[in-house]
């Protein structure tokens, strides 16, 4: 079953066309990468999926239903969970309280990841359960942001630049966790500027360039296409 289908999505910000006819899809159980240079529209796309920004036209079909007109909170309650850029932990609440807030999105849907699951995945969160989250390191905050989204029972997890500002060692830990989650069946759409990491972790990938999809295909194929990497990602 297809978890997410985007058809011809257009988004404008104050006259600037940020997305110009994007189409992509994510199948159930897949981990898909969306890569592209700074300003290509990657975060805009995720924000449009969670309805934080309004789309101008196009379809976003999540598990068979178009999310048009739904409030951001309603989108996340339906199981489409967005871990935003910069983590956005609830800084003056404790780790435990952040995870409890994460439960709200699950509502009455059945538990997919229990608190024990999350602690098992990121043991540091259990060690620091009573610490005020604003005082955690960047990597710990990223783990908390992911763990919090897992508490919400995601059918699709949107991740925006999880490696941003993290040391390579911590980035490894985060990506290992993501791979493990995907292996357990979690569907993920991963936005990354760090193309090599993203392509190594995923099976399929899209390249976004100035608001349009310029390439799509298997991640391994893309990783070997030096021309595409160089011209679109400047990496």
């Amino acid at each position, binding site marked *: 079953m297809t978890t997410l289908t985007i058809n011809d999505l257009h988004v404008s910000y104050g006259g600037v066309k940020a997305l110009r006819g994007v189409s992509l899809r994510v199948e159930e159980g897949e981990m898909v990468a969306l890569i592209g240079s700074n300003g290509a529209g990657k975060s805009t796309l995720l924000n449009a999926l969670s309805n934080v920004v309004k789309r101008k036209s196009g379809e976003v079909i999540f598990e068979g239903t178009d999310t048009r007109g739904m409030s951001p909170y309603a989108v996340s*309650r339906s199981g489409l969970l967005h871990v935003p850029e910069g983590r956005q932990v609830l800084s003056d609440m404790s780790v435990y309280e952040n995870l409890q807030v994460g439960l*709200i999105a699950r509502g009455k849907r059945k538990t997919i990841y229990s608190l024990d699951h999350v602690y098992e995945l990121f043991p540091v969160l259990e060690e620091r359960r009573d610490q005020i989250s604003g005082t955690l390191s960047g990597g710990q905050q990223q783990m908390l942001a992911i763990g919090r989204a897992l508490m919400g029972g995601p059918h699709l997890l949107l991740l925006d630049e999880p490696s941003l500002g993290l040391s390579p060692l911590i980035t490894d830990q985060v990506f290992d966790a993501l791979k493990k989650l995907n292996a357990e069946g979690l569907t993920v759409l991963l936005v990354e500027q760090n193309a090599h990491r993203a392509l190594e972790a995923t099976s399929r990938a899209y390249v976004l360039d100035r608001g349009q999809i310029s390439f799509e295909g298997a991640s391994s194929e893309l990783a070997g296409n030096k021309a595409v990497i160089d011209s679109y990602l400047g990496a």
Partner: protein
Amino acid sequence: MLTQQILNGLVSGSVYALFSLGFTLIFGVQKLLNFAHGATFMAGAFIAYYCTISGLPFVMAIGFSMLATGLIAILIDLIAFRTLRKRGNAEFPALVSSIGVDLILVSIAQQVSNTQVLNFPFGTFPIQFYDIFGLRISLLQIVILATVAVLVAALIFYLKKTTFGRQVRAVATNERAAALLGVNAQSVYLQTFFIAGALAGLAGVLIGLLFNSIQFLMGEPYMLRAFVVVVIGGLGSVQGAIIASLMLGVAQSLTVAYLPSGLTDAIIFGLLFLVLLVRPNGLFGDINAVAGGTRQ
């Protein structure tokens, strides 16, 4: 006399706490100053007064008044804040529109009361005094202290330990992140306004009863004190607001008792500046809370 004055101050301060908590809550969640809070407080006293004189038992009058002021506060949110919030950058316009709501409510009260000072009929609450270790304390003062203590404890429990309360704090910290986690900010706003309004309404009833005076302008001095409390306590901090309220009450009592009169306000604001010099974020405002507040 010192202990008696401290008691007087604690009783007044506990009612300031009730008043200021709602104001702080709205500021904490929305980063907006609700100038109509004083009028909501006044409305609470008025509604309970008119219920009482039309024969409703006093306890029911209080309940009805809290319900009504809760709804008034929700109306304030819908009328004065919601549309402005949608267009963003609402601080200043919301300030002005809440002053507008305040003026409307005050004018209505003035018309209704014919500019007269009202008071609950004698015997609405039994006047009884106890002498405890040389302290003269009335039954009403005891009831007020107990009521405020219970409500404050309940509010803190609600904010810290319940799912609803966590949603309120999540919106206060980071509204967008909260929305991505499934928190319905609009419903949080309505809840906080309802709670703030009901607490203000109750504070109005208690003040009206304690000091035998219900008047259309009664909210103004309390608004002024709420500003002091919110700033000293740390913007948006609930514990800070409670402690600052009690401190303010006691400081006021003691300045009246021991210093030249007419200086009370000057001294209170002198204290305010002193606190801000030493702790610019207030006594209990921590950097995180402020950073969370400005991130929106």
